[in-house]
């Protein structure tokens, strides 16, 4: 019974495949893997927009949207109808084809990365041997789409937003990937399925998730921060920066193209959260052995919702970075910490089991954290500016 519920989607796929002639089977199998992804994650996007607006409202001591349907639960429907019925405006100076292509590319890229995420036991669209590599390589193409949007709109705010986005995404890609590499080093595999399998066991009630180890915890936090920056969410929402450059690279988009940008942004967030779950939070494994009766896909989505809640919470708390602070934080703190974390993970892997490796791994992370943290707190020295030519 429990197994049946766990494998319900896999079994359903097999049932649907049975009558299909064998030469059509690869195509139908691919379709049956893709279509649920195309339905579930946009649905989750709709749910998240509502939860986000409700949650931010409560954080700011107000009711969120509460007009459409009971407690405002139909708000995403109203938003969808609104964006669908709005006029699609293309600026006269824009490059029409690239302007049209940018949101399409962005959404395609955002969907592609879901191919390698294991959503449950035996539930992964493609089990690539280089799944993690695929995830980050394809995810990086989002930057291209963002710059296409910013460039093709022919608007200075768009271009500013796109330039900020490129600077930010490239700077934060490095700690993102470096923190993921630790897991690859420890498991010795780039396959997402292998990585989840490596976190399967329990000691007592404690799961063997990588986040439970010092390098894993540091890696998880670094990954989360870089993921926030990669998905352009507050406090790293400089590319959009509503109060500064209105909406950044998608200012010239209206109607459903705007909705596509919004969708892609949230899809990117879910994908990168899913990757964080896969790498550090044990994928679809239950958090305790006595909770294993919960279907694996339910575990995954509960973890995903928890991470989304964390992102919303962070958005409700933190103000936006300044551009120089953003760069400083990445290059002076995140990247050195990620490199140190890499060494820590390597030592963890090489040393024997025992308290020494916990101590070494922990100290190797804590010391640079304190030192780098102190250097970030140091104020720049102010001095009287002198001019060579002016009075």
């Amino acid at each position: 019974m429990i197994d049946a519920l766990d494998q319900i989607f896999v079994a359903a796929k097999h049932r649907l495949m049975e009558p299909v002639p064998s030469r059509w089977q690869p195509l139908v199998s691919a379709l049956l893997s893709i279509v649920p992804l195309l339905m579930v994650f946009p649905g989750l996007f709709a749910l998240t927009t509502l939860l986000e607006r409700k949650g931010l409202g409560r954080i700011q001591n107000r009711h969120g949207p509460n007009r459409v349907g009971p407690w405002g639960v139909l708000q995403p429907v109203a938003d969808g109808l609104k964006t669908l019925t709005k006029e699609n405006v293309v600026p006269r100076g824009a490059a029409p084809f690239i302007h049209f292509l940018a949101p399409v590319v962005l959404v395609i890229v955002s969907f592609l990365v879901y191919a390698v995420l294991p959503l449950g036991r035996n539930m992964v669209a493609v089990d690539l041997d280089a799944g993690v590599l695929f995830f980050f390589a394809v995810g990086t193409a989002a930057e291209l789409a963002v710059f296409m949007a910013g460039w093709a709109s022919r608007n200075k705010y768009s271009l500013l937003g796109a330039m900020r986005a490129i600077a930010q995404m490239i700077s934060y890609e490095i700690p993102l990937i470096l923190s993921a590499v630790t897991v690859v080093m420890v498991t010795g595999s780039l396959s997402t399925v292998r990585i989840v399998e490596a976190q399967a066991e329990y000691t007592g009630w404690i799961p063997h998730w990588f986040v439970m180890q010092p390098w894993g915890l540091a890696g998880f936090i670094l990954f989360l921060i870089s993921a926030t920056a990669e998905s352009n969410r507050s406090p790293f929402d400089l590319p959009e920066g509503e109060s500064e450059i209105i909406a950044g690279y998608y200012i010239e988009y209206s109607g459903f193209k705007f909705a596509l940008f919004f969708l892609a942004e949230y899809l990117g967030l879910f994908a990168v959260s899913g990757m964080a779950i896969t790498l550090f939070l044990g994928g679809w494994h239950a958090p305790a052995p006595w909770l294993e009766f919960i279907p694996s896909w339910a575990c995954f989505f509960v973890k995903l919702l928890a991470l989304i809640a964390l992102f919303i919470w962070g958005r409700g708390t933190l103000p936006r970075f300044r551009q120089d602070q953003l760069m400083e934080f990445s290059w002076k703190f995140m990247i050195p910490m990620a490199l140190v974390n890499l060494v820590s993970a390597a030592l963890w892997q090489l040393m024997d089991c025992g308290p020494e490796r916990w101590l070494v791994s922990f100290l190797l992370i804590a010391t640079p954290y304190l030192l780098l943290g102190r250097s970030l707190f140091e104020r720049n020295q102010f001095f009287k500016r002198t001019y060579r030519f002016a009075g």
Partner: protein
Amino acid sequence: MSLLGGGILKGMFETARNFFGSYVSAQRLTTVPYPEERIPAKANARQFPFLVYDGDDSQAGLRCVACQICEKECPPKCISIIKSRDKRQDYKGQSQFYPATFDIDISVCMSCQICAEVCPFEAIKMDVEYELSTPDRFGGLWLHKAQLARSSRYYRQIHPQAAADSDGFMAAESSKARARVGASAAPVGLAPQPRHAE
């Protein structure tokens, strides 16, 4: 020494307190869902002026004597009055003009209450009604005296304290006038002294 990230944790704690607090404490959630619930009007609330009348006839009972002080004093000049040709009795029994037309353009009115301050006859007061939106930009904003007239009972209801003061002032004025008539049969028609803002 402050630890890097400590401020973030402190902030997250604060927002979490707000989040959960808004579910338990009504004091935190101060927003009133407007069309269903309303905040009771404040005693000193003011929106746009209205004309007070006594008795039941909204036109015959108007206190306004068309002295046009408010029209002259109005800073944005949104009041327009045309004096009547004939006269009628006011509450003191004196013979007075009355407004043939009394129009207020509430799209121009800035709710400053100066008209109510300068009126010597307690005839123009500030309303608390704020749901005045109209589907038309020009209609419904140029109000004539028929639309502006509100009974003195309504005034007592919306501004009880100010209405009591105003009633007291009017009672004193009319008893003074009656005493003057009874004592010396002096000619009527003296305008009452403008009352200064208290």
